[in-house]
C-alpha cells in the first residue's frame, strides 16, 4: 500500500550529504514529496525531514540503505500518532475591497497572520498540519491566490507519556 512516510535523518554536516541522500531515493525511483534540512544545536550535524510515499517494504530497504551512508548518523521513521508534524505556507492573495474582510475572517479562523501588505495583495503566513493547509488553500482559492510556497514538512517525536 502506498502511504506517506516521514523520515527523520540525522547527518553529518558535510557538503554532498544532501546529494547522497537524495540520490538514494532517485536511484530507486522513489519520489521525495518534501525535504527540509537545517543544522541542529550541534553545528556539525544537520537534521533532514523527508516526506515520501511508497510501500513499506521499499521504505525499509531505503532506510537500510540510508544507514549504510557513511555520513548518516541515525534514521528514524516518524508517524502521525506519536510525532508532531507541521508545515508552514506563505500565500500571496488578491486583496481588494470585496475580498479583504473574507481574508481576515479566514485567517483568524485558521490562526494565520498577515505578514506583508501591498496595494492589492496580502501575504499570509500559516502553520499547521498538511490537511489543514489543504483546506485553507481550498477556501482561499476562489478569492484569487497569486502565488504560494510551502516549506515542506517538519516533524518531531513527542515525549512519551506516562
Amino acid at each position: 500500500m502506498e502511504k506517506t512516510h516521514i523520515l527523520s535523518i540525522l547527518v553529518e554536516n558535510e557538503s554532498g550529504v544532501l546529494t547522497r541522500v537524495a540520490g538514494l531515493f532517485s536511484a530507486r525511483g522513489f519520489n521525495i514529496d518534501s525535504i527540509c534540512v537545517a543544522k541542529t544545536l550541534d553545528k556539525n550535524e544537520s537534521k533532514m525531514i523527508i516526506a515520501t510515499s511508497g510501500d513499506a517494504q521499499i521504505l525499509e530497504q531505503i532506510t537500510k540503505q540510508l544507514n549504510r551512508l557513511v555520513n548518516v548518523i541515525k534514521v528514524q521513521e516518524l508517524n502521525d500518532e506519536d510525532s508532531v508534524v507541521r508545515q508552514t505556507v506563505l500565500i500571496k492573495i488578491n486583496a481588494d475591497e470585496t475580498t479583504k474582510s473574507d481574508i481576515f475572517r479566514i485567517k483568524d479562523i485558521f490562526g494565520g497572520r498577515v505578514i506583508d501588505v501591498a496595494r492589492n495583495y496580502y501575504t499570509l503566513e500559516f502553520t499547521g498540519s498538511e490537511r489543514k493547509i489543504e483546506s485553507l488553500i481550498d477556501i482561499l482559492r476562489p478569492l484569487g491566490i497569486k502565488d504560494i510556497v510551502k516549506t515542506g514538512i517538519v516533524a518531531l517525536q513527542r515525549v512519551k507519556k506516562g
Partner: protein
Amino acid sequence: MNHNSKKNLMTGSKIIIESLIKEGVDTIFGYPGGAVLNIYDELLNYKDKINHVLVRHEQGAAHAADGYARASGKVGVVLVTSGPGATNTITGIATANMDSVPMVILTGQVPTNLIGNDAFQEADTVGITRPCTKHNYLVKDIKDLAKTIKEAFYIASTGRPGPVLIDIPKDITSSVYEFDYPENVELRGYSPTYFGHHVQIFKLAAEILKAKKPLLYTGGGVISSNASNELRELAELLDLPVTSTLMGLGGFPSEHPLFFGMLGMHGSYAANMAISNADFIVAIGARFDDRVTGKVEEFGKNAKFAHIDIDPSSIGKNVKIEIPVVGDVKSVLSSLLEVLSGKSEEISSVKYERLGWLEEINAWKYEHPLNYKMGDVIKPQYVIEKIYEITNGDAIISTEVGQSQMWTAQFYRFKNPRTLLTSGGLGTMGFGFPAAIGAQIAHPGKTVFDIAGDGSIQMNIQELATAVQYNLPVKIAIINNNFLGMIRQWQELFYHKRYSFSEMNVNPDFVKLAEAYGAVGLRAKHPDEVVPVIEKAMSVKRPVIMDFVVDKEEGVYPMVAPGAPITGMLLV
C-alpha cells in the same frame, strides 16, 4: 602540535605517499597526467618502497588493483589524473563496488580555485562516482589530507568492503603541512556490526538441527571475510550440503562430497533442485541476485530462510528472511560452531536422519551431471577441464564475461578461496586480463590464467604491454568462437536465431598480436592440440596468449530462462 612535529613539514604529495606507506601499501596501479604530476614526481623518491605499475589505460589500472585486492585480501590502490583519467576508471570502480572489493582510488583534480570553472581536464569526479563507490571525498584543505586517507582505507576494508575514492586538487599536492598520521578514525555514522547477535545465533543453531532438508547457499561474503575454514567445519559437522554462487566459488572445495556446484541461471541441476526442495536454507554472505534466484517467488519455495550478512541492507531485500543475522560471516560462523559444539549426541542423530536428503541430492547429481559431447572440433568445456587438470586446481583464474566465464565456473573445480576472480555483479567484459595482472603481482610465484572470450579480450588487450613490461607470466586462454557467444546463445534461444550483431566477423590473429607485443602466441585448432598448448604455455615464463579455436555454436547448459523458476532448466 609540539616542536617535533614542526620538523615533519611535507608537501601534500609526500603526505599522500607517506600515508600510503603507513597503510602498508607497496603497490600502486596508475597512469600520470597534469593534475597528479606533483605526486608522480615524489613517487620517484620512493622507488624502493612503492612499486608503481604503469598500465596502458586507466580502466586497466582499476581492474588490476581490483584483481590484486581479490587475490590478496589487501586494499588495491589506484592513482590517476583528473578528467579523462578519472572517468576512465569508472567501469573499474563500479565493478569493484558491485562485488564488494576493497580499493582506494586517488584521482587528481584541477586546483581548488578553478573547481567549477570548466577548467582544462576538469570533471566532477566526486559527483560522477558517488553512486558507484562505498564513499568518496574531495580534499579541500591540506589539513584534512592525512585524515581522509586514513578514513578511506578504514571504510574500504571494513564492514562490507568497497571502493573509496579521494579526489585531490593539484594545489593541495604542492602546498606544505605537517604530517601527523592519525592513529584512529572517528566516524559517527559508520560502525559495521561485526559480531552476530547471540539470540539470533541460538535460533539459527536450533533451526539447523531441527530442519529435515537443510542447505547452505554461500556467496562472496565467505571469501571476503576469510571464512572458508569455518564454513567447511560447519558443513562437515552436520553433513550439510553446500551450493555456491559464482562469487562464492572457491569458498568451499568443489571436489568435496558435500558440494553440489553453483546454483542459479547456469547452476547445476542438483543445486537448483536442492534449493527448491530444501526446507531450511542458510544464505551465507550471499545477496539473492536475480541471476541466482530466477523467479524470486519460487526460490526456495518449500524453505524457511536464515541469512548471515554484514550488510543489513542485503537482508530481506528480495526474499523474506525468518532468521536474519547481521555480522561478519567468519565471526558468526565461529559463534555458531561454538553453540553447536556442545550438542554432539543430538548432532549424530540428526545426521543419521538426514542421510536420505543427501541421497536425494546425489541422485539429482547423477541424473544430470554437467557434461558435453566431444567431437572433431574443440569444445570450450574440454579446454577448461584440461586447464583444471594441468594446473591441478591450484591456479588463480580470472575470467572475462560471457559463455567462457560460465564454463569456467562449471568446469574448473575451484579448491581455494581467492582463486576465482570474476566480475559477478556488474558483469564487466575486459575485467579478467587486467585483474590477472594484479593477481600475478600479488602472487609472483603462482600460475595465473585469464580465461577469456574473443570479444572480451579485445576490451583491455592494451594491457599486454604492461604484462610484457613487468615480466608477468599471465596466461590468457582465449575461448575463440568468433562470436559474442553469450549474446548469440540468448539470440538462439529467445530471438529465433536472429544473430543481430553478435558475430565477431573480424578478429585479429591473436598469435601474431601476442608476438607484436613481445608476448608468446600459441594456437590450438584440434582437440589433440589442446593439452600440448596448455603445457607449452605453462613452461614459458612470459605472458602467453593461447588461441583455442572452438565450436562456434556451443551453448552453456543447464540454463534457466531469465525470470523463470530455477527448476525450469534447459538441459543439454
